[in-house]
């Protein structure tokens, strides 16, 4: 089979990484790996009693922590648990330093010893968190990605001011819809013009569409950065012709406006090309027939031409929407803090905050949305019909 090498190649270099990411979003080895004894004895503890666990658990914790400190794993454990409950990281680090000096043989009561190190160890909430995240797999990242948290009495949503991800997803969807809409608005007349002009002229004009399509994404993004800046070309021009005063230049960059303008420009060819290829197939005789039967220009367009161009709008919109929803580079550069997408948050979690699980969970949610749209696209347009250039 000629397909086999590529299939294998794609599976290894692309599908496996995606699978790995999905796995990371539920993986939770760190607690059970670092504190194996504690996790084992802690499973017998009933979190509803409201008191800290017994001596036996503290003894296991002392042994586990001592080993963990030796291999410096305890800071990792601390930051992992800190995602779930703030304060644990410093608690574990501080305790780690003291446990190092603790003589296991000569300690009469571990519970008392830990209480002396830090009173927080008597707080059942801490133990509850450890117990909750001691299993190998967790839905904690997904809960966090959906702005939910697991409290003593089941799953509940987090405080209003901490609900960032839901807002970010909604914003991503809204902005992508806005961009798609702008693309339809600007792309439809162009595609119509190209489809109705004589071949020779339309081929020349087509170059104006294809040039941005072929130009490097970063070139276009830097162009917009240059144009939209406070001291940039557009603002300078507007000040020069006197529309706005020098003192109140327009805020065009580092906000939603900047992202929408730049991304509409970048994605517009992806709307025009499918629209054009559909409009090309509409015979011009239909319009003439409608007019000869008494329809005026607008009527003929609305009742005859437009309905036939809807498949093109659908194909273009889904394509633009899919591409927009996952964009990272352009929002990162022109979006500031208000105009960023969910992808920017994923990148932040993976490269800066190192909360990989949460980044992976957010990615998994985004992936599901995109795959659903991909399926829709395949159903209505067919992936074989994707046209390039």
């Amino acid at each position, binding site marked *: 089979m000629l*397909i086999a*090498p*590529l*299939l294998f*190649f*794609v599976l290894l*270099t*692309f*599908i496996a*990484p*995606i*699978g790995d*990411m999905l796995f990371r979003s539920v993986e939770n080895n760190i607690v059970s790996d670092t504190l194996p004894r504690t996790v084992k004895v802690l499973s017998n503890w009933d979190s509803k009693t409201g008191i800290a666990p017994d001596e036996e658990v503290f003894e296991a914790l002392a042994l586990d922590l001592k080993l963990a400190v030796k291999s410096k794993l305890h800071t990792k454990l601390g930051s992992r648990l800190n995602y779930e409950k703030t304060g644990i990281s410093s608690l574990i680090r501080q305790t780690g330093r003291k446990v190092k000096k603790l003589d296991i043989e000569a300690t009469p009561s571990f519970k008392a010893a830990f209480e002396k190190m830090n009173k927080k160890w008597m707080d059942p909430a801490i133990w509850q968190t450890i117990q909750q995240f001691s299993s190998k797999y967790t839905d904690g990242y997904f809960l966090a990605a959906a702005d939910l948290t697991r409290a003593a009495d089941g799953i509940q949503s987090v405080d209003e001011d901490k609900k960032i991800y839901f807002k970010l997803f909604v914003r991503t969807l809204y902005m992508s819809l806005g961009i798609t809409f702008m693309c339809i608005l*600007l*792309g439809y*007349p*162009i595609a119509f*013009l190209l489809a109705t002009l004589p*071949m020779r002229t339309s*081929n020349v*004009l087509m170059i*104006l569409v*294809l*040039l*941005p399509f*072929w*130009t*490097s*994404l*970063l*070139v*276009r993004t*830097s162009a*917009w*950065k*240059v*144009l939209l*800046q406070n*001291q*940039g*070309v557009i603002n*300078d021009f507007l000040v020069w012709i006197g529309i706005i005063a020098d003192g109140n230049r327009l805020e065009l960059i580092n906000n939603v406006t900047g992202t929408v303008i730049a991304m509409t*420009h970048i994605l*517009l060819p992806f709307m025009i090309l499918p629209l054009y290829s559909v409009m090309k197939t509409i015979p011009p005789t239909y319009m003439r027939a409608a007019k000869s039967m008494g329809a005026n*220009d607008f009527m003929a367009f609305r009742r005859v031409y437009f309905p036939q161009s809807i498949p093109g709008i659908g194909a273009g919109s889904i394509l633009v929407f899919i591409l927009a929803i*996952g*964009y*990272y*580079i352009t929002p*990162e550069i022109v979006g500031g803090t208000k105009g960023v997408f969910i992808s920017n948050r994923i*990148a932040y979690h*993976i490269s800066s905050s190192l909360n990989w699980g949460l980044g992976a969970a957010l*990615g998994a949610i*985004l*992936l599901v949305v*995109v795959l659903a749209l*991909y399926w829709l696209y395949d159903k209505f347009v067919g*992936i*074989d019909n994707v046209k390039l*250039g």
Partner: protein
Amino acid sequence: MALPIYASPMQKTWYYTFRVICGLVFFFLVFPIMVIIPLSFNAQDFFTFTPEMLAFKSEGYSFKHYDDFFTNQDWQHALKNSLRIAPMATVLSVSFGTLAAIGLSQSHVPFRRAIMAIMISPMIVPLIISASGMYFFYSRIGLQGTYAGVVLAHAVLGVPFVIITVTATLVGFDKSLTRAAANMGAGPVRTFFKIQMPLILPGVISGGLFAFITSFDEVVVVLFVGSAGQKTLPWQMFTGLREQISPTILAVATILIAMSIILLTTLELLRRRSERLRGMSPG
């Protein structure tokens, strides 16, 4: 869509308004790219037209940003990396992609739709997701931060383009030609190189160009999979734009625009050739 002589004033007004609207959209499409070119010759370190430039005085213009690009170590290193990575990735995606496209075009392929969906998926899945997945997985198997890792990642991103363009040329391919070649005693390998390859070559080349540009223009994946040693041109531009924006970026951008114009011309010529070969009239 020429205006008939009997058009009413209303129709005339609308006709010209429509032309103006289209003109504005074309302006929106092309202006941002074109404005970069004169700005890159700015003698000052500004991102806007200086009074000297607007008066077309020669002291307002200079090549200093180009000088910087060709002498600066960082930029040269990045350029070299891009030129090392993109061709390798292109060769990989073209060879795998062409084979698979030919395989897929045969009539009896089980799960054709599913296989196609898997092979096209690198184009559909958001880059940030592919990039983070590759970051996790490639660091497990020791490819993260290596030249090979970046090449493999870029190759898989280029595959969908090759598949799409080659499949498109294969649609018009006359199967009886290969049968005729076999009839005259050519083996499958010989048939492929002598008969099939020359005919689908335009599709292969344009797929290759797509794959090349994909790799040459890619930032997100290389940011995650690569390390400082694999810093490519787009990566350098991205950090430049995010941190200290220097006008050298405009010079680089102008060079890249020139490159895309060359690519666009090549593709257009290829398309005409392919249509001529298949007996369609060139547009």
